[in-house]
């Protein structure tokens, strides 16, 4: 592994083209939509950082930040669906950027529709930095203490 890692930086080993689409759509978002925490966590490096850019909310570390965020998300929303994906997939920079629709229903509330995008930068074969843009209020809040 290279000594210094940068988002989309040089020197990274390219994985097969389909790997990027599969980890995003078939593992990560499938895990989110089915509230399968372990499947979601398995997509991240230990020291991954997930940033919700539109509100500048930063979740640092797979366990301390990202797991806590998903624990709250899974508890606060009864139904979550991600689909209509269009991927921009770049094995040469070990990155994938994805556009998609989100249908999400707060407990006891009405379904919300978002048109979001994520930028995923991998270190090895897992997400190391993820940047999320939302078309509405940030739903990826800090986990409850």
């Amino acid at each position, binding site marked *: 592994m290279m000594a210094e890692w940068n*988002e989309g930086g040089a020197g990274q080993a390219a994985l097969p083209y389909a790997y990027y689409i599969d980890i995003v759509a078939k593992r990560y978002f499938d895990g989110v939509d089915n509230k399968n925490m372990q499947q979601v966590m398995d997509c991240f490096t230990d020291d991954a950082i997930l940033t919700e850019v539109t509100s500048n909310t930063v979740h640092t570390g797979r366990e301390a930040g990202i797991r806590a965020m998903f624990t709250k998300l899974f508890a606060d929303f009864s139904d979550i669906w991600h689909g209509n994906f269009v991927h*921009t997939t770049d094995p040469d920079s070990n990155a994938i950027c994805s556009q998609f629709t989100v249908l999400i229903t707060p407990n006891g509330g009405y379904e919300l529709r978002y048109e*979001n995008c994520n*930028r995923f930068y991998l270190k090895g074969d897992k997400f190391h930095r993820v940047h999320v843009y939302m078309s509405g209020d940030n739903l990826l809040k800090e986990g409850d203490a």
Partner: protein
Amino acid sequence: MQYEPTLNRAELIALATKSYFANVDAKNMDGALACFNDEALFCVQTAFTRHAGKSAIKRMFEDFFGAYASIVHKDFVCTVDEKNGRIAASFEAVLTGHDGKITQLFNTNFWRIRDGKFQEVYVYFSGENVLV
């Protein structure tokens, strides 16, 4: 929508960062518009705003160019899907108003290329939409 890929990696990056953003920053309307197909769509996803067709995109840029004394896009990180004629880029935008007020944005654009030009552009803002 899927379009037949025609540009290689270097050409896609040059189109997005040089032909397009360098001309936007220079307020070169003809240069910026030359990157678009006539029936292109320009969508600001974080504001549910869509500009359809080159004349609507031109009107958007006229207002944008007029609203700021200087426009700078920099620090691009490009993600290139050569097989599908797509490119995404994150970047910092520094917009200086005529009163000196500075607006700093960390945005992401997605471009889908058809016949060597932008067919669809999707913009995700870190802050308030300035492309109205």
